């Protein structure tokens, strides 16, 4: 099981299934944890807010990657599912007095249910047709939110009280950072472990070759719906976190653009990779935030400042196109290649 310059060899099934194979990977884990712990002390308030957005996006992107990257079911309904999670949490918080933990649970379950419902077309459709069906689900969910005033408050914002958990009121971005980082870590752990189980492997089998999967006893119907439910569960969690953290919900934050943003995250990060979802979420949230900050510095440059939203959109779109044309496997693949380069140095392969 030692890492050699020619590769990592396993002599037991246990070793093969392990999450981490080499000592260096433990070192990396420790480094990542140290950086995560240190970030709130070094980040400026602006970047702390961005970090919290990234944390939430990581949860959502892992969820979407389970569905799109691992199970191969294209979904353009992410924004709608996020809205279901956020509004469920918001309604539970404003209309009942139960613990926010129950609110999170309700959001996860409700979104999983809605996700499975809108996953029903996946039983008859795939590829392009499924993408269009989920696009419709996105529009339908947003319509329901803006028109069922008696449940969601319609087009008006839904305002939440600060969250109190076991007598501790979570206030400020620094406290929220720990909560969100905790959930992001949990999502990463669950996501990674999911693909060490039979269910996760069934998802991958359906993506790779659905007929062969059925032949070896994977029921495509059941597992496709399950993939929609599991994925939406993660997305619901991300939505609930958004609701409790920002304390204000409007439907505009869950439009088709959000679905596209999340798809961009997993494409740029790497389809079918949990770490890819994390890289992609960090990159796609940090990039516009960085541009925004640049615009503070370029106050005098009126072109840059007045066209900021358009420039952000331009760079966003260009990033998607460039990644797809030049590195379709995303940042996870770039990272892999970098590792290989140093591992095999001075040889090319």
């Amino acid at each position, binding site marked *: 099981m030692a890492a050699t310059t020619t590769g990592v060899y396993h002599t037991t099934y246990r070793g093969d299934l392990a999450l981490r194979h080499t000592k260096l990977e433990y070192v990396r884990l420790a480094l990542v944890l140290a950086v995560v712990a240190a970030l709130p002390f070094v980040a400026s308030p602006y970047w702390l807010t961005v970090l919290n957005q990234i944390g939430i996006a990581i949860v959502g992107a892992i969820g979407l990657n389970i569905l799109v990257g691992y199970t191969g079911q294209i979904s353009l309904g992410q924004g709608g599912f996020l809205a279901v999670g956020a509004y469920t949490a918001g309604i539970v918080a404003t209309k009942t007095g139960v613990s926010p933990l129950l609110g999170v649970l309700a959001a996860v379950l409700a979104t999983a249910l809605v996700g499975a419902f809108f996953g029903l077309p996946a039983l008859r459709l795939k590829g392009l047709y499924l993408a269009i069906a989920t696009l419709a689900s996105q529009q339908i969910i947003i319509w329901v939110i803006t028109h069922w005033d008696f449940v969601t408050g319609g087009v008006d914002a839904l305002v939440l009280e600060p969250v109190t958990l076991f007598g501790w009121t979570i206030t400020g971005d620094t406290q929220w950072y720990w909560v969100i980082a905790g959930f992001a870590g949990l999502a990463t752990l669950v996501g990674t472990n999911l693909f060490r189980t039979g269910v996760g492997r069934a998802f991958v089998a359906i993506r790779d070759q659905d007929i062969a999967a*059925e032949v070896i006893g994977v029921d495509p119907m059941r597992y496709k719906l399950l993939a929609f439910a599991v994925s939406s569960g993660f997305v619901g969690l991300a939505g609930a976190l958004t609701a409790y953290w920002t304390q204000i919900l409007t439907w505009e934050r869950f439009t088709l653009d959000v679905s596209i943003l999340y798809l961009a995250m997993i494409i740029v990060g790497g389809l079918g990779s949990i770490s890819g979802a994390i890289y992609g979420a960090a990159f796609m949230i940090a990039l516009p935030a960085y541009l925004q900050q640049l615009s503070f510095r370029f106050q005098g440059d009126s072109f840059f400042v007045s066209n900021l939203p358009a420039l952000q959109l331009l760079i966003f779109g260009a990033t998607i196109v460039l990644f797809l044309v030049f590195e379709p496997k995303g940042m996870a693949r770039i990272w892999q290649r970098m590792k290989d380069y140093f591992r095999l140095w001075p040889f090319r392969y």
Partner: protein
Amino acid sequence: MSTFVQLTVTGLSNGAILALAALGFVLIYKSSAVINFAQGQFLLIGAYVVWALTIDAGLHWSLAVLGAVLVAIALGLLVERVILRPLVGQPIISVIMVTIGLAQVLGALVLIIWGTTPRAFPDFIPSDSVDLLGAQVGESRLWAIGLVGIALIAFALFFTRSRHGIAMRAVADDQQAALAMGISVRRVFALAWALAGVSAVVGGMLLASLVGVSGEISGFGLLVFPVVILGGLDSVLGAVVGGAVIGLLTAYTGGYVGGGLQTVIPYVALVLILLVKPYGLFGQVRIERV
């Protein structure tokens, strides 16, 4: 009765423009199996270029339309060559996302060049209202229906009479057989994108003369999906019928039911069609296990 006539005209004129946008969409899908999410932005660019050439550059509208058609052809060819060709053989998700990314880039460029202020479109078709069967209807809407009709007939003639049109149908039918007959499949793909650009210029222009030039036009692009799913993703006739049906459905729902239901009804229809008849009314049925 007069409400009915009004709604019918509104629905049919919107539907006609939708049909034209859907036609560009179907052309690309039929020949190269690419779903073009940037169709709405193509409409938007078509409208803005015509607007800029008439108002800013002061050209006669016929020259402006010609200029916009050339721009659209160039844009279509560029997109096909630079963005879509490297992705041949890639998974569907990549192809979908690349056109979505393209839509963002094009939308952003329009924002940078022309800003967000809605503009009035030059009157190149009359905008008075006329009396039709006892109802007041916008003359521009009748013109839109007529012009789209002419454009669709022109496209139909192109497909049935010209060598290029027949070559496109051959490629759509069977790429290998078309190659064996000496048809350049690459050139057909390029032609499909160029034609999609042209149909978007006409559609965008007509849409702009009904609702003005603003970012809203690109939102119209999403309505193309219910249309093409109803008609069948690879059917030209389907695009026409689908456009009319979705346009009328939206108009009647808005007029008789109201409550904002008209914005969502096309998508509800879309899901139902997908569940009942996934390949639409005229689409080619592909039997595959799902």
